[in-house]
């Protein structure tokens, strides 16, 4: 549904994205993950024909986003970052207007607007001015708008940004449901989101793709590079010094809880240092209340990839 080839965009000479190549197949929910300024919005704006790339090519539903932008736009539901809306309009009025603009046939407008209001939970605010809506409802209006013309493909730029945890869960469930009938490309810098909703993830950093895989595979790759948690009373010992001597331990961060010290250990890939730690603890007569291997999360993958150059 989306095909991107060597896509590059420069703002006044400064590259925002460089040589992106990826594909999103039909029915996929693709997560686009990266820290702020990584180039997510830039990529999505190019895909939505809002601005042309500096070089490279992108097609949406088989249409070139630049040369056949009108057809490409007609096949795409796009929700921009921060969801700009006309605040002087009422919800239904706005959706009616957007439906006509997107070429929904006259006799189907009422039905479509009714459907998306139902789907996005906008019934109770349908007659409110958009200016009076909370952030969560504005987000839903943006989503409803993207769905109006029944596009095969949805591009959602940070759909859950600025929402409270409850709203985030609602929007996430909504997206998961939409994923049953639509192809979705969604961007976020919140990790659990892609872990829970996406079938594949692209990690983008400083305008380049650093990884592209399923969440499971990405986790698998650096599962071992997770960490170990140790809570112990170390008496007169420093703790950190001794732990760092164990081979395979890269880094130790220490925190304290009363008399208890909490050590977070970063270990090398493939190393299991728990046995060594236990031996150390018995010889030094530390009193241990917890010793666990922390499972790597996508967050670790992310930190690993995006901070690799600064370590």
């Amino acid at each position: 549904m989306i095909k991107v080839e060597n896509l590059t965009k420069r703002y006044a000479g400064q590259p925002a994205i460089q040589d992106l190549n990826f594909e999103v197949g039909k029915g996929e929910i693709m997560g686009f993950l990266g820290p702020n300024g990584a180039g997510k919005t830039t990529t999505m704006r190019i895909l939505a024909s809002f601005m042309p790339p500096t070089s490279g090519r992108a097609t949406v539903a088989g249409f070139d986003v630049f040369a056949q932008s009108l057809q490409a736009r007609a096949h795409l539901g796009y929700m921009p970052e921060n969801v700009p809306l006309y605040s002087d309009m009422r919800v239904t009025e706005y959706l009616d207007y957007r439906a006509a603009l997107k070429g929904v046939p006259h006799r189907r407008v009422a039905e479509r607007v009714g459907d998306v209001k139902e789907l996005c939970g906008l019934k109770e605010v349908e007659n409110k001015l958009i200016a009076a809506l909370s952030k969560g409802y504005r987000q839903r209006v943006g989503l409803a708008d993207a769905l109006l013309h029944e596009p095969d493909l949805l591009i959602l730029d940070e759909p859950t940004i600025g929402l409270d945890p409850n709203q985030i869960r609602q929007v996430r469930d909504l997206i998961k449901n939409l994923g049953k009938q639509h192809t979705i490309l969604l961007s976020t810098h919140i990790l659990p989101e892609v872990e829970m909703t996406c079938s594949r993830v692209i990690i983008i950093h400083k305008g380049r793709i650093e990884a592209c895989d399923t969440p499971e595979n990405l986790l698998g790759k650096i599962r071992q590079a997770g960490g170990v948690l140790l809570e112990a009373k170390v008496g007169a010992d420093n703790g950190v010094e001794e732990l760092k001597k164990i081979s395979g331990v890269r880094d130790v961060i220490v925190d304290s809880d009363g008399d208890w010290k909490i050590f977070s250990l970063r270990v090398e890939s493939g190393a299991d240092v728990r046995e060594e730690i236990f031996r150390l603890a018995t010889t030094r007569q530390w009193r241990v209340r917890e010793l666990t291997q922390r499972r790597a999360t996508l967050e670790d993958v992310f930190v690993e990839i995006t901070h690799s150059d600064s370590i």
Partner: protein
Amino acid sequence: MRKFYTLLSREVRSYFHSPIAYVVLIFFLLIAGVDFYFQVSFMNQRQVQYTVQEAFFNSVFFWFAFVLIFPLITMRLFAEEFKLGTIEPLMTAPVRDWQVVLSKFFGALIFYIILWIPPAFYFVIFQYVAGQPAAHSAGAYSGSYLMLLLLGMFYLSIGCLASVLTKNQIIAAIISFCAITLLFFLGLVQFILLDVSSAARDLLGYFSAIEHMGTFSRGVIDTRPIVFYLSMTVVMLALTHQAFQSRKWRL
């Protein structure tokens, strides 16, 4: 065509959703009313060679209000969409650039025409109360209203261009105000500099809104200003379209 109509109706509605429209409307009615009142009471005191309608369209009051309303009507057209980011959902919908540009221009034109409906009733009321017509012929009415339309189109298109150049409404208003005032005074130069060559004077005459209004409001329809204002409007809209498209490369 349906998309153009959809855009146009949203533009017109948005005027009546914004307080600025009502400020302009009231300000304009007030000035036009004061103008009309002064012209009539002035004529009551002495013998004059012109009609109420001619006096109304050629007074200082009229021109003052006239030059001021265009920046107010047009400043928000594009600048506000750029500022609030609503340009993004707009231009990622399947609409063409020219549909957006023309809908904004014609939306402004419709609002401008609506502004001119109440003053038309002044003449009707005058005729009813005074028992005599306010103009010497129907042609004088249509001449002055035609000139209003032509001048309006030209100045509104300048306003569109100013608004597409910036995302700051105030700057847009200042640009269009300066451009319109400059054009307006360009037409006055020929009255001030008496020793300019006749060719230069002819050229400047093309910009003389006051002179055009003077002839048209007497009911004398000259095709040259008609062609001039229409073609200038087209040029301004083409420039607006160009600037609007190049926004993509500036981003």
